[in-house]
């Protein structure tokens, strides 16, 4: 864990909006030289605070009009290995996110599909046939919004 100062946090806020900002642009925006800005970005990358990039696309324009979150409860817990379930679920191309969670469900998945009919196909052929799958709850995503998070408090 590394300590961040106000400038680092301002950099993170800016990069979380636009990861393509160059060190020169960041420096100009926050009153630092290009090399000083570069060193700060590099330090946060090396510490793993900046973990990578996310390309934001218009999924509907690419033909994926439906995003569904699934909550999955495993039916035969203890007998089916979590590894088997995880290996099988991560092999499904339509599954973007797999999270192991504690609560009402055991896993949380984000699934993309072309339309509701396509989603039904993925659900029936791919999800319901996963090893150990039990109760499944589906919620269709309407809107999503990423927030800057507690960068003012970090």
């Amino acid at each position, binding site marked *: *864990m*590394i300590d*961040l100062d106000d400038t680092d946090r301002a950099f*993170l806020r800016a*990069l*979380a*909006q*636009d*990861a*393509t900002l160059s060190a020169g642009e960041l420096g100009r925006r926050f009153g630092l030289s290009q090399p000083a800005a570069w060193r700060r970005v590099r330090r946060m990358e090396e*510490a*793993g*605070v*900046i*973990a*990578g*990039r*996310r*390309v*934001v*696309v*218009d999924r509907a*324009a*690419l033909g*994926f009009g439906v995003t569904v*979150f699934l909550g999955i409860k495993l039916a035969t817990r203890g007998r089916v290995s979590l590894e088997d379930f995880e290996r099988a*679920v*991560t092999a499904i*191309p*339509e*599954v*973007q*996110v*797999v*999270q*192991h*969670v*504690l*609560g*009402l*469900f055991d896993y*949380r998945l984000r699934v*993309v599909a072309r339309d509701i009919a396509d989603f039904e196909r993925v659900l029936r052929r791919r999800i319901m046939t996963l090893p150990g799958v039990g109760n499944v*709850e*589906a*919620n*269709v*995503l*309407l*809107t*999503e*919004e*990423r*927030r800057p*998070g*507690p*960068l*003012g*408090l*970090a």
Partner: protein
Amino acid sequence: MLDDTDRRILRHLLAEPTLSTADLAGRAGVTTATCWRRLEKLTAAGVVQGQQAVIDWRRLGYEVEVSLRFTLDKTDPRAFDDFLAAAREVPEVTTIETFLGRVDARLTVIARDMAAYQEVYRRKILTLPHIAEIDALMLIATIRETEGLPV
């Protein structure tokens, strides 16, 4: 609209967003100039909307991540708007989603530890307007996270 070259470039870009344009071009089997032009075109058309840095909150000491799922009291027509506006004011909220289904809205909430989470939950979450029901999923591990599409 989109041809096979566009799709190939997008597929590789979504799978590996940190690739340079030259490397991306190599993977997609086009020249760097073509790749750059196609990306410009896709961006201008709004297909590519931007690139965001991914922050690893655990590295900043936020050890707890909870997915809170809400059913709202929809007898009030302003329920969604009020709830979303209030949720935006909570700094520990990193994502806000709305759904069609049993769940109306979902918030991702992060905190440094369980004590801090409990504090946020009591003071900032339970006080959000128009909540009918809440359930919580605590994150144990993210097994996979990608924006990749089977395009």
